[in-house]
């Protein structure tokens, strides 16, 4: 599904690569977790895969397509849930979703029904006509997710989709993502919630300093790491306990 070869990204003026010579293959139908400390290169990798950043070197294909040649096709194929709330605060939830759905070529009753269906599943139908500016963080996160899945993407990229939301919202989001996955959507997501990733992902890769340190099923990684009881202990063992502040 996704084949990444020798992918690197070095930002202008930076001393080091954010992602360095990364090779990775993600199979169709997986829920793939990209885990790593701050500044590890998770967001940079997702940004490259979702057409927001140009790689310095290397290449990748998604379902056999590349951005240069098949940009429009590829964008139709994928969905991206950015880390920030990428919504118009002065528009209602429905208006935001109608607009972003239209950008994928959806229209008419098909689009309306699709919006209503997702709003209902994520518990927001009664707030469809309220402005986003009035929404709580959790509600915004859920609308942010719906805006990226209205066109039923084959691949969904999520950059920390549950950050800053309450347990209830997080639960609804994760359940909805599982439902999408069961309907055939491949999910690639980054998170700092290792417990969430451990139970949600079918595969995880721990990234640090732009490189993959380890990759595998969460249960396998836990088993491989001596005395580790969960993914968080694997993570700390692999990346260390020192702070990763950067600016």
């Amino acid at each position: 599904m996704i084949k990444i070869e020798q992918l690197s990204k070095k930002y202008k003026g930076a001393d080091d690569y954010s992602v360095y010579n990364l090779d990775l293959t993600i199979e169709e139908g997986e829920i793939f977790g990209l885990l790593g400390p701050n500044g590890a290169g998770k967001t940079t990798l997702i940004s490259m895969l979702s057409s927001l950043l140009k790689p310095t070197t290397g290449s990748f294909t998604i379902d056999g397509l590349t951005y240069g040649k098949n940009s429009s096709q590829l964008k139709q194929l994928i969905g991206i849930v950015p880390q920030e709330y990428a919504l118009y605060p002065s528009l209602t939830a429905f208006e935001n979703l109608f607009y972003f759905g239209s950008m994928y070529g959806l229209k008419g009753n098909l689009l309306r029904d699709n919006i209503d269906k997702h709003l209902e599943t994520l518990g927001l139908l009664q707030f469809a006509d309220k402005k986003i500016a009035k929404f709580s963080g959790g509600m915004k996160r859920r609308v942010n997710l719906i805006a990226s899945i209205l066109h039923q993407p084959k691949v969904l990229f999520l950059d920390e989709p549950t950050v800053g939301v309450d347990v209830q919202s997080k639960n609804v989001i994760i359940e909805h993502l599982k439902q999408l996955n069961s309907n055939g959507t491949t999910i690639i997501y980054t998170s700092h919630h290792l417990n969430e990733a451990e139970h949600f992902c079918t595969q995880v890769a721990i990234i640090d300093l732009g490189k993959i340190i380890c990759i595998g099923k969460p249960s396998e990684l836990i088993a491989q790491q001596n005395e580790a009881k969960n993914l968080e202990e694997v993570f700390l063992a692999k990346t260390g306990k020192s702070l990763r502040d950067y600016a």
Partner: protein
Amino acid sequence: MHKLWATTYKEFLLLTRDFGGLAILFLMPLLLVITITVIQNNTFKTLKETQIPIVLVDQDKGNVSENILESLRQTGRFQVIDQFDEQQAQLLVQTGKYQLAIIIPKNLSHDLTQKVDQNVNDILEKFGAVEQVDSLPRLKPEPKEVRLYFDPATQYSFRSSIKSGIDQMVTQIESQTIYQAFQDQLADDPTEEIFDTESFIKFTEIIPNKDGEASLIPNSTQHNIPAWTLFAIFFIILPLSINMVNEKNQGTFVRLKTNPVSYATVLGGKTLIFLSVAMIQFGLMLLVGVYLFPLIGLPRLDVAGKLPLLFLVAFFAGMAAVGLGLLLGTIAKTQEQSAPFAATFVVILAALGGVWVPVFAMPKFMQALSNLSPMNWGLNAFYDVFLRDVGIVELVPEMALLFAFFMITTLIAISYNNRKNAL
């Protein structure tokens, strides 16, 4: 096409949801055009109808100073105060109590008469009309200086108009003195008038129309509405660029970059909405000029038979403004970059375009620069319709330039965006 309409509808919603911003977008240009027209109309009235108090210091006490005083009074523009000496007059003007003081030097009448008499005598001697008298001493009077003290705060145009007015008066008095000297020398009977001293050359102000016939002289409304309407239309780059910067800050622009929609479509929606705003602004300006101005004592805007052409020019001027806004919004990263730049740049374009100072009065290199200002093209097109009464064919070059400006700025914006996001 569906994506374009969806984008246009979204822009419409964004604009109409910000009621305060919308009100400012429509009301401020109206306030601007009303304020400027009232001020300019009043300035015009002030110069023409109300009297400006000035100080006259008459050190001559002769017929020349009497003539100057009389001429000043006859203009009806000045209220002459003649109770101060030169030192006091200078102080009063310097402190801004009066805008002007005229100092008529001592012996001006005597010396002018003496100089003219000598010259006339010399001429008549050459023609043998009078006998040559060698024994008379030849006195050469010193040239006289009429001093004009101006308040430093007065405008150059005011000073210039006063100077030329006084100069005209003095020249007229000199001519009359010469005529009088000839009259005294040649006429046997002092009551016999041998010269017709009436001015031979007169000026008539004519504004020709395209048929070569004279038409009414344009009033301040006819001048102000096109200039300030254009200024307001170009101010649209400010909200437009802020709208685009907001999308970047909200993250919606990031989402749009990942959507299968071209940047041209995104800009297309903005163009349709902001162009509509420009047209509504223009319509409101016309309504104000036609209906409100007469109610507040301003001259009525005459749009009879010109509306289709006026809207056509406004449409192309609006396109040029929108193109500039799209380019600025594409390049700017923050509101701190876009807002001050947009506001200042519109003022510069207006200055270059001849909104404040006519282009012909600018230095040569500024005149050349002015040809590059879309506001200059728009203003010329509006003046062509409002004041020169031209047809659509004559407007084609200016509208083509405005359209080309829109195309170039938009294409640069698209190309800049694509280059920044090329994969």
